[in-house]
């Protein structure tokens, strides 16, 4: 089924287009020569061993820093040298491999800040009627990612699992068209991973998802298209089934132990 949809989308221009993207950090070439097209509605997993350059690639796409070579195009707009704040309004949101939350604020406020981030009006120092709607929306998203019971708790007091859920909630709160998830399952217990997988599968197709994941069960269940990276380059692409059968992938990655990336 996923195959059909992917091919159906083939005629449409990709919402993310990378051409020859590379990024150096001093002498280290963390990413090089990456070409990638992601189409609307796609579920894409980016796999690879530690240090393969997956998170660097994410940061380049999200605008954390610009690539040192190549170009990044989002929704048909060249954003290569634009900062993250120019990409968020286009509908790009992300999560972080290590939770980056506002520890001193409540869950609801974390989500609310995420909504305002995408909505604009960042210097508004008065509350309007619209804010009530945003607050409602924040609580609703909180419910959706399973945090309904702890909406008014300060984030610093949440469990690790809850913090990972909030990571996704914050990416969702921006009303994304493209959501980039950096190891959402990191550090989760088995039962939590199952719940996470269900949640990811339940997302609307209007949201395109790119996923970095070490947990093969999660990644290969959610994704319908897999990009395999090694040493900063793309070394294989294909469906989950193809990737499972790829000997190179086995040698590089599946055969080795998992751990925290980069």
């Amino acid at each position, binding site marked *: 089924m996923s195959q059909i949809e992917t091919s159906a989308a083939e005629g449409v221009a990709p919402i993310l287009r990378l051409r020859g993207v590379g990024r150096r950090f001093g002498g280290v070439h963390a990413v090089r020569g990456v070409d990638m097209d992601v189409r609307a509605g796609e579920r894409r997993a980016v796999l690879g061993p530690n240090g393969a350059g997956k998170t660097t690639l994410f940061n380049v796409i*999200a605008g*954390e820093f610009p690539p040192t070579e190549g170009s990044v195009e989002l929704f048909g707009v060249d954003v290569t040298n634009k*900062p*993250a*704040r120019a*990409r*968020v*309004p286009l509908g790009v*949101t*992300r999560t*972080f491999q290590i939770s*980056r*939350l*506002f*520890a*001193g*604020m*409540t869950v609801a*406020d974390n989500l*609310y*800040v*995420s909504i*305002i*981030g*995408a909505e604009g*009006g*960042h*210097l*508004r*120092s*008065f*509350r309007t009627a619209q*804010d009530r709607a945003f607050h409602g929306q924040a609580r609703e998203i909180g419910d959706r990612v399973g945090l309904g019971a*702890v909406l008014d*708790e*300060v984030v*610093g*007091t949440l469990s690790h699992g809850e913090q990972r859920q909030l990571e996704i909630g*914050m990416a969702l709160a*921006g009303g994304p068209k493209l959501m980039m998830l950096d190891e959402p399952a990191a550090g989760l217990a088995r039962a939590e991973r199952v719940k996470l997988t269900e949640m990811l599968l339940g997302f609307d197709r209007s949201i395109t998802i790119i996923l970095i994941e070490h947990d093969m069960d999660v990644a290969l269940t959610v994704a319908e298209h897999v990009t395999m990276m090694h040493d900063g380059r793309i070394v294989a692409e294909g469906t989950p089934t193809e990737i499972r059968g790829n000997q190179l992938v086995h040698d590089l990655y599946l055969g080795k132990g998992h751990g925290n990336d980069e």
Partner: protein
Amino acid sequence: MISARLHWLIGIGIVIVAAVLPFVFSNFTTSQILTRALILGLAAASLIFLASLGGWVSLAQLGLYGVAGFTVGNLVQADGGAKVFAMDIWLASLLALVVTVLVGLLIGVIASRSEGIYFLMITLAFGVIIKLLFEKATDLSGFGGINQIIQPAVLGSAQLDPERIYWVCLAICVLVYLGIRYFAHTPFGLAFQGIRDNTPRMRALGYNVTLIRTVAFGIAAFIAGLAGVLNVWWNTQISPGTIDIGPVIFLLMIAIIGGLYRIEGAWVGALIYVILDNRLRSVDLVGERVATALGIVFLLIVLLSPGGVMGIYKSLASRWRRSRSESGAARDGDGTAAPTVAGD
């Protein structure tokens, strides 16, 4: 809910009690203890505003306070000021606030890219630069400071009607306090706190971190400027010594004594400082070592509670609550958790 309402009632109660204090105390106490505490508290509030919401400890706030005071002194006809403008005191005060905010924004642009100890050092440098500027430019700071700065007529005489300036200070402090509390829950206020907690996430969420920080610094400058204007209204005098490094440290001490993460701590700290400063000088034993004695009190408070007096209060509060209700305490912080500005 009941608790929140009670909180409001108590807040109103504090303000009412504060408002009648001039009838209870002598003119000297009203002016030299209470008004001084309100003004220093307001200056400390600008520091705590940045510390609690932005996670920034700024040592430039007293410098900004001085910018406001010196600007007023130079714009009105005062002894030692520039004298060429001879403006109305209200207009001069308004312009002083504008100048202070502009200077604050300028410092903000430069300082907003740094954090922690670097931010502390940069703001300290600005504080010192401002002090040196006024010290060297005797055209702007007079020979022995600017003296005889006129007060707004409505305030009457500083000697005979000390309660008027006190009430003005009280009203402004209440407004600033409520304003900061309100601000903390606006999009801007939350964004500023978000940057404190996690700057990369804020960038990823689409926020212009530098801009937000700069403008927030401008707001803090406005609060410091208000305190600076009130100070010259009250003291009718300002000199470079007002913003020297010693007073800068004392302002930081006030903020820390009160509690760096609670806006109300600003006035608690200021009151404690002013009373100690006044009373310690009357004690024969410490008469010549006031700074040392203040330092010891400061150390005791900080050792007793890193969160200052408000921190002591807060941990008492949670202990009291825990003993009151054994259940539902699971998620409670013990008062030492992440900094947070009180929600209402």
